[in-house]
């Protein structure tokens, strides 16, 4: 696996023309939100990219991220990007198993110490590390051990990036994100449940060409997570015109109106879904008629109900409101009674006067 041909060689052997490669680079630039002027540089960098060894660690996860990334129907240049890396360990995909598999990981770590890339999907339980083990090694230990010699870590999926579903309340396993454990390595978060495959390859492409991309405060590449879904949503004009679907089966829903009132989290969710879309650009949740769940955001499971509009209070405020009415009424009665007592006292103290009592004696 170690002596893979360079990308240009690969293209030649696959009969891919330079023109196709330029087309890919152009589209890649568009996906990464880079200027079209950058295309020549991308092409050059991709051709001469080093081929880092990649160790893929899967912890508390559903394999959805791996599924997503391997679900390309047609062989594309994305495949080539993957071919350009040396995936030395991925316990779901690799042929080897058991000791042989672990040996491959240890070998890669030793061979490429300080240079390999660790890709993680899944959260890490820390309440009891024994909740999730691979080959008898707890996730926590394996992450620490593997991360020690890594050049960078890519946390793929919301679980690895932010804890995800495992971290959701009440978090029985004490699941945490990679960044909670590893503090001394650059970490690129590629959240999403799962992340868009093109985004994953785009990040890898960026890493191969220009190194670690510019990240936002949540460790996400700005190129893909710089703007909210709401801002890029093709249904945004309906929002601006005040046209909303009120249920999943009304005129608005059929007419493709804005899904804000059905709980769409687009306004607070940063992701490229609305532009890059899913399944090779076929569609994305909102286009399919479902509000955005906000899966690229930390704690999206617990950020209010999926079908609750963002502007709606998250708590059980109705009961509280009724309690407040009762409490306010009680306090009001108390206050009024105090006031009335004062007034009654004043009335009692009232001595009928006549016109001769209106001047001060002094």
């Amino acid at each position, binding site marked *: 696996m170690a002596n893979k041909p360079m990308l240009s060689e690969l293209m*030649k052997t696959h009969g*891919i*023309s*330079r*023109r*196709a490669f*330029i*087309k*890919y680079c*152009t*589209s890649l*630039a*568009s*996906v990464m*939100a880079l*200027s*079209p*002027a950058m295309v020549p540089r991308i092409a050059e960098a991709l051709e001469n990219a080093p081929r880092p060894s990649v160790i893929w660690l899967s912890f508390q996860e559903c394999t959805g991220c791996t599924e997503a990334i391997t679900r390309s*129907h*047609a062989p*594309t*240049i994305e495949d080539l990007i993957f071919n350009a890396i040396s995936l030395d360990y991925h316990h779901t995909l690799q042929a080897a198993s058991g000791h042989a598999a672990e040996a491959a990981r240890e070998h890669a770590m030793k061979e490429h110490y300080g240079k390999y890339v660790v890709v993680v999907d899944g959260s890490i339980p820390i309440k009891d590390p024994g909740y999730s083990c691979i080959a008898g090694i707890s996730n926590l230990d394996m992450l620490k051990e593997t991360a020690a010699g890594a050049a960078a870590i890519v946390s793929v999926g919301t679980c690895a990036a932010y804890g995800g579903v495992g971290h959701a309340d009440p978090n029985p396993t004490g699941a945490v994100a990679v960044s909670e454990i590893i503090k001394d390595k650059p970490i690129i978060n590629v959240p999403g449940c799962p992340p868009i495959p093109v985004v994953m390859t785009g990040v890898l492409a960026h890493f191969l060409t220009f190194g670690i991309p510019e990240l936002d405060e949540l460790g996400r590449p700005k190129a893909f997570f710089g703007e909210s879904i709401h*801002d*890029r949503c*093709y249904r*945004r*004009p*309906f929002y601006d*015109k005040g046209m909303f679907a009120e249920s999943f*089966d009304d005129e608005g829903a*059929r*007419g*493709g109106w804005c899904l804000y009132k059905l709980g769409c989290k687009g306004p607070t969710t940063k992701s490229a879904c609305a*532009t890059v879309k899913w399944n*090779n*650009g*076929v569609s994305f949740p909102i286009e399919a008629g479902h509000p955005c769940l906000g899966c690229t955001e930390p704690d999206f499971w617990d950020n209010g109900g999926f079908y609750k509009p963002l502007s709606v209070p998250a708590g059980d405020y109705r009961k509280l409101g009724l309690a407040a009415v009762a409490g306010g009424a009680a306090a009001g009665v108390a206050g009024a009674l105090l006031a009335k007592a004062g007034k009654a006292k004043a009335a009692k103290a009232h001595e009928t006067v006549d016109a001769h009592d209106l001047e001060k004696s002094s």
Partner: protein
Amino acid sequence: MDCNSPNTKKTSDIDDVLSFVSTGNAIPLLHEIKHALGQLLENNVTSTIDLGAIPFAPGDERLLDDVLGIGEVHAALAVMGESHVRETAVPGVWRIDHFDEDGEIQSRFIEITFMPDILKTQRTDAETGLETLSQRLNALDDNR
């Protein structure tokens, strides 16, 4: 609800409404194109505008198509999926749409140039072509 029930009138109504929905981004974009065309003529500078980088609604799309129109050249490329290179009715302004092998849109550009680069034969491809041609000629020689 029966999702397959044909309700064509309804759908066309919706399309009609949608086509009027716009973000207002088309007009500034057209001005940018005009400026770029001026630059091309004055300083021979080509420009590329990534349509994926601008929020566009169907109404914007319609306006852009209406204003630019369809020109004389239309090239269909077969490069890992189709690509379409069309000159608009405003010569010097080209529309380039890249599709992947499933026929889904990959990226879309407007190029302001005398000749889009993607149409030109790449040097390495020509080199490969030379090799290929040589091999084929050799094969002919061998078979002779």
